[in-house]
């Protein structure tokens, strides 16, 4: 079976763009991905496209995948839309890797897009809850912030911690995002700021919640055969893991972990034949600060209950031993739902090819992406590796 490689990746800035459409955003991300290959790849090389989007605000249309790929001139290229809520983008990458590894395609566009900021306040309220468990969970009046806040309440009760670890996530990710020109909220904040944010869903406040964003991101996934005639940068997709779980929190075995993440990580590590200790940095799904705390533990970056210590001692800072979310994460970089997973891959590609600018890490070899749908109904983990001469 052939290996799969990411040979290019790019994204739009994430933010609020009243003058952009979902097609124009996708076009910018696609062009950015092509540019990352130094112009050596064009649309004629593409065999397949997989596009992640939830399609909020009236864009939950049939064929929204081909709508964007045909727009950028991927004429006739088979395209499938993937919807796994906030993990749509990560699953699009996984589908692209599967297409390459199966031998059916040599170059696949894995993309994602979302437009979330052009709706009325009323429509926004309707759409933001669509990826939860609707009949029971949502109809207790809760939202995504609420469900993650419930997890936070259980975590705080179990480990006897306060909200400070959550606030440290915000401080760290904003510090990183401030170095990322593509970040939606590229400002820094203090621990005091983050502890004093306006309450959203207790115990989570505004600093513990990511924004909703417009944006698109694209990764180009290629086969070994394709690379025979290609000299540009590439990173190997060393491991892929994915898992599902009940969509509603109450139906899960635990509220202080996301079991789908745990299973996805185990599978990805096994495929990559590495352990968490061999990961140099990670882009994790921090839609809410508690999600990053749980991710450290679910991904095996520390023992259960130890995530607050990692945050307190700076291990996951940009200059720490194990930087997490050097891009700023969902918290600062932004969260355009369908584009988030491919956006994580774009960051890892930049870091592993030395193109991450002011936030460039020191010669990393392995990076991990972790993308979660809903409050844990779906999760996908990738391990990427820069191949070095033995």
């Amino acid at each position, binding site marked *: 079976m052939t290996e799969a490689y990411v040979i290019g990746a790019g994204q739009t800035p994430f933010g609020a763009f009243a003058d952009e459409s979902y097609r124009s955003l996708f076009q910018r991300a696609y062009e950015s991905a092509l540019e990352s290959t130094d112009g050596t790849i064009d649309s004629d090389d593409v065999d397949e496209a997989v596009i992640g989007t939830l399609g909020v605000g009236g864009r939950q249309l049939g064929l929204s995948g081909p709508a964007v790929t045909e727009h950028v001139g991927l004429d006739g290229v088979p395209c499938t839309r993937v919807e796994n809520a906030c993990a749509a983008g990560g699953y699009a990458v996984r589908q692209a890797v599967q297409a390459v590894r199966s031998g059916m395609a040599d170059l696949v566009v894995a993309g994602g897009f979302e437009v979330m900021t052009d709706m009325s306040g009323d429509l926004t309220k309707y759409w933001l809850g669509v990826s939860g468990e609707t009949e029971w969970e949502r109809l207790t009046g*809760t939202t995504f912030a609420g469900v993650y806040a419930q997890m936070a309440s259980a975590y705080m009760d179990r480990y006897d911690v306060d909200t400070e670890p959550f606030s440290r996530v915000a401080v760290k990710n904003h510090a990183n995002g401030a170095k990322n020109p593509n970040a939606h909220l590229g400002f820094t904040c203090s621990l005091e700021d983050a502890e004093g944010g306006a309450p959203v*869903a207790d115990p989570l406040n505004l600093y513990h919640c990511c924004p909703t964003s417009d944006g698109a991101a694209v990764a180009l996934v290629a086969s070994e055969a394709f690379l025979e005639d290609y000299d540009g940068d590439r990173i190997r997709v060393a491991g892929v893991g994915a898992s599902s779980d009940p969509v509603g929190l*109450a139906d899960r075995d635990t509220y202080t972990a996301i079991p789908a993440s745990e299973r996805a990580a185990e599978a990805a590590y096994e495929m990559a034949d590495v352990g968490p200790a061999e990961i140099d940095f990670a882009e994790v799904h921090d839609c809410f600060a508690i999600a990053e705390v749980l991710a450290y533990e679910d991904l095996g970056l520390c023992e259960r209950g130890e995530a607050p210590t990692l945050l307190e001692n700076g291990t996951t800072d940009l200059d720490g031993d194990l930087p997490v979310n050097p891009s700023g994460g969902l918290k600062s970089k932004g969260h355009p739902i369908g584009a988030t997973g491919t956006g994580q891959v774009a960051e890892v590609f930049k870091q592993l090819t030395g193109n991450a600018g002011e936030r460039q890490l020191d010669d990393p070899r392995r990076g991990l992406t972790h993308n979660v749908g809903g409050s844990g109904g779906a999760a996908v983990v990738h391990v990427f590796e820069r191949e070095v001469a033995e």
Partner: protein
Amino acid sequence: MTDRSIAGVGAYAPADRISAEEFTEALGTFGGTGIRQKAVPGVDEDSLTMAAEAATIALETTAVDAGDVDGLLLATTTPPMDEEDPTPRLASMLGLDRSVETELQTGSTLAGVDALTSALERTDDTATLVVASDAPRGAPDSAIEHAAGAGAVALVLAADGSAPVVDRATASEPYPGTRFRPHGSGETTSLDATAYERSSFSETLGDAADGVDVDGIDAAAVQAPNGKLPYRAAGALGVETDDIQRCATVHDLGDVGAASALLSFAAAVDDGAERVLIAGYGSGASATALVVENDGVETTLETDADGDDLSYARYLRRRGELTSGEPDGGGAYVSVPTWKRSIPQRHRLEAGVCPDCGVLSFPPDGACDGCGGLVEYEPIRLPGTGTVEAVTTIQQGGAPPEFVEQQARDGAFQSAVVAFDGPGGETVSVPAQVIGSVEVGDHVEATIRRIYEQEDVIRYGFKVRPR
């Protein structure tokens, strides 16, 4: 007459109150004469949820099995919808048999006493449930609104009850315009012709009381549109004002409409009264007088003011005078047929036991939580008690659209995951909205409330409150 007698009484009133002073301070006047404070329904309470509360209390008090109830009579001037029978939902909430005969009495404040007299004729029932529940409303500047309270009472009737109705009489006389609600209006009003209204009230009540023997009455449960009118009728009724005052609920609960006379009756027997006059009145006008001899009927009254004291501004907000309803939009829509399929769970917490592994599942559909098998669950009604496993407070502005109006009226609320108690110490985790405030580890109990309203259809289901 009848062999039926009252076996037990349950009563419920919302916990929150607003005082007469709050009205006076805000408006310079208070039209609820003789009322010190009144009960204000929760944002998710109405005549149906209060009826479910009172009926549940009455069934528990009498230890009557829901399956033994053959007749259910609900009385209210404020049914949740102008057209659509609420009694099937009440029967479902209480877990009554599908063959139970139900009846809705409405259209006048006499409906409560009418329901009782109708129930007395149901001689073949093992048990009959009479529930009177009301939460009248008027225009914000009207005496009717100032007096309008909320409360519910439920009476269990059986052949072996300890409080028989020993005498009864009815009288009527056409008196248009004293208290009415025009088509399409949610507000009860009157012509405010004071002397005319007083004569309607006293004349019809007096005529009804003339038909019964009021000798030896030690409590008089008289219809109370406000805190003064019943006392004015004491002479016509042939009772002492002290007899009225002994069991008057209007001073602390306000005008509870169709529940008024029966709620006062509940207070009378709870206080040990032995011979009680029930004097019901409805505009139009008609009145019924009943004499009840009480030989220690079982009572449970959950009518205490143990909630919040509301300001007038908060009262108006709670009543929906300052809010604009559900936002427009779409997405994550739960259709009414979908909701209907879940009613056994929403109304009665009906879980399922896996026939293969015995594990409890809620809702009882899909693969078993224990063995993963696609099984036919054995239904089991959970007792409704449980422990909070996780909880959040959804702050203002953060609610899903179905709950925007609720939050606008009543502020932040909690949503929790509750481990509900099942058989043999087993639990099953279910999300639930919280009434009040809880923390992880707190014990809670389920009760029926309005969950939300969409497309003009009210969805009722369980919420939890601290236990």
